[in-house]
Structure formats: structure tokens, C-alpha cells
């Protein structure tokens, strides 16, 4: 497929997903003396349309590069952002694309995309163990970074009661753990 402008990409998502599309924006800023633009796209979709959106990205670019899956704890929901990059290989042409999905905390599941992008398995494993999101259909279910004797049900990236408890923090003798709000 030929390269589209950022706004055209957002429009193509609207036509493809219809109802599943939630919102999109383009962020630009200027760099250095010649003021070339650093561009990034942010698109939010509903959970039901998630796999369809990933397939659409694979059509925009053959072998899109998935950088990482980042997750944020927003209180009642968990938001996953899949960071893709497309149009790499040529001077000043690449775009960062962030695909957002919000999951309610009482139903933290998301389908896997390792059949489309085999390299996603590490980052899906990490999201599982660090945030407590269950990835349905993942080929490898083991922990990645945490030790095997780490307690179950403790998820380091959460801000609610499931984060690491105070007695797990290694504080130097004579100090109190620092508490930001």
C-alpha cells in the first residue's frame, strides 16, 4: 500500500471499524534547526474491535514493528497501549502509532496477537505478570521477569491494593518508605 498521511490513516480506521472506533489524534512537534516534524498518532478503539484494528495495521504496513505494550492503572479501568511503528526504512518517513484499549477491572482479558506478530510474545507475558491482565490464547504462559516464588496476586504496576505491599520494599535501616499520593 502506498504511504498515507496521518489524517488519512485515522480516516481509514474510521471507515474500517465504524462503531468500534473511539477517537484519534495526531501529535506533532518540531525538531532542531530545520524544524522537521516528529509525528505520532494515537487511536483508541473498543475492545470488541481490537483484533480487527491490528489486522488493519498489518494491511497498512507489511510487518509492522510492535515496540511494546504499556499499561496504565486508571482506577476503575486498565488502559493498554500497543505502540506500533509503520513506514520505516526511509528518511523521515516513519510514524509512531499508539493503539489504545480500555479494559474494565472486573474483566481484564484481551485476545493475543502472536499469530499476526510472533514477536509479541515477550511483551504479552510481561503485561500478564506485571499488571494482571489475562491474554487469551497466548502460546507461552510463564512468568518472564519476576522470580517464580513471587507471591501470586501481587502486580507491581498497579496502584490499588494489588501493588507490592510495604513489607516487600527493601528500605535501608533507619528510613521509612517514601509515600507519594
Amino acid at each position: 500500500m502506498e504511504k498515507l498521511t496521518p489524517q488519512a490513516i485515522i480516516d481509514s480506521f474510521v471507515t474500517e471499524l465504524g462503531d468500534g472506533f473511539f477517537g484519534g489524534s495526531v501529535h506533532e512537534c518540531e525538531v532542531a534547526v530545520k524544524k522537521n516534524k516528529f509525528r505520532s498518532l494515537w487511536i483508541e478503539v473498543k475492545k470488541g474491535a481490537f483484533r480487527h484494528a491490528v489486522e488493519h495495521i498489518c494491511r497498512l504496513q507489511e510487518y509492522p514493528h510492535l515496540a511494546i505494550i504499556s499499561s496504565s492503572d486508571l482506577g476503575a479501568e486498565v488502559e493498554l497501549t500497543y505502540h506500533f511503528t509503520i513506514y520505516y526504512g526511509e528518511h523521515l518517513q516513519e510514524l509512531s502509532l499508539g493503539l489504545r484499549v480500555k479494559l474494565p477491572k472486573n474483566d481484564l482479558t484481551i485476545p493475543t496477537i502472536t499469530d499476526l506478530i510472533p514477536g509479541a510474545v515477550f511483551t504479552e507475558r510481561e503485561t500478564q505478570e506485571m499488571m494482571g491482565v489475562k491474554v487469551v490464547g497466548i502460546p507461552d504462559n510463564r512468568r518472564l521477569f519476576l522470580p517464580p516464588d513471587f507471591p501470586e496476586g501481587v502486580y507491581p504496576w498497579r496502584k490499588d491494593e494489588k501493588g507490592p505491599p510495604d513489607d516487600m520494599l527493601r528500605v535501608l535501616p533507619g528510613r521509612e518508605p517514601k509515600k507519594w499520593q
Partner: protein
Amino acid sequence: MSLTAFKRALWVYHLNTGSCNGCDIEILAVLTPRYDAERFGIKLVGSPRHADVLLVTGPVVKQMVARTKRIYEQTPDPKLVMAVGNCGIEGDVFHESYSLAGPIDQIIPVDVYVPGCPPRPEAIIHGVAMAWVKLEKAAKQEVA
């Protein structure tokens, strides 16, 4: 500072308990022709059973505790432990993390501390020389 008991080279085993590699590459730089610790007789070995001095870097990550203790026990006496770098001494920037088991001296006894993030190669050579002297004294006391 006269060394009498150690007439052979001092063999050093390096153990990484989860460090960022900054101290490790400075330890390796000590062997290169610029600083050349081998002319003093200091040599890196590949197994703790041949070592006289244990060079430990890194804040001890929980997964590495068992391995650290095992390697300490495998090293034969007389031995010395050197903690290189701020992480091993008191945690440096990582001191409140949930995955740390504490500074090195909470796990195994430490004899020489070399602070710095990372310490310069000259400081590491100075630390090994101090360890040498200390080991000398310990050997003399055993004989006496």
C-alpha cells in the same frame, strides 16, 4: 607494606548479582594494557574454587541470593570479599525497590568496600591492593 605470604598471583573471581554493568566494564578495563593489573599478578579466573578474592557487584536481586551464598561457600579459605560500586554498598538509586534483597553485606560478609558509580579503574586496583594486605595479615595470624 611488605608482602611476604603471597608469593604467587592473586586470583580474583567476579560475581554479578544484578548490576548495570558499569562497574563490570571498569573491572574489565583494569586488565587491558592501559591499566594492566596483570603486571601486579592479579588475574581473573573462571571458577570460584580457584579464587582468593571475590569481586561482587550489583544490588543483590532476590533471584540471585541463593547463587551468591553458594558461590561464597564454594570459595576456599583464606578468602576476601570486595564490594565494588555503590549498589552493593547501600543500593544506590535502587534502594527502595521490591525486588532487592538488600546490600551485599546483608547476605555475605564483606571486607573491602570500593565506592563509586562506577569507581575508576585506579580505585579498583587500590581496593585489590588493600585486600592483598589484609589477606596477608590474616594468613600471618593463622600461621602464628
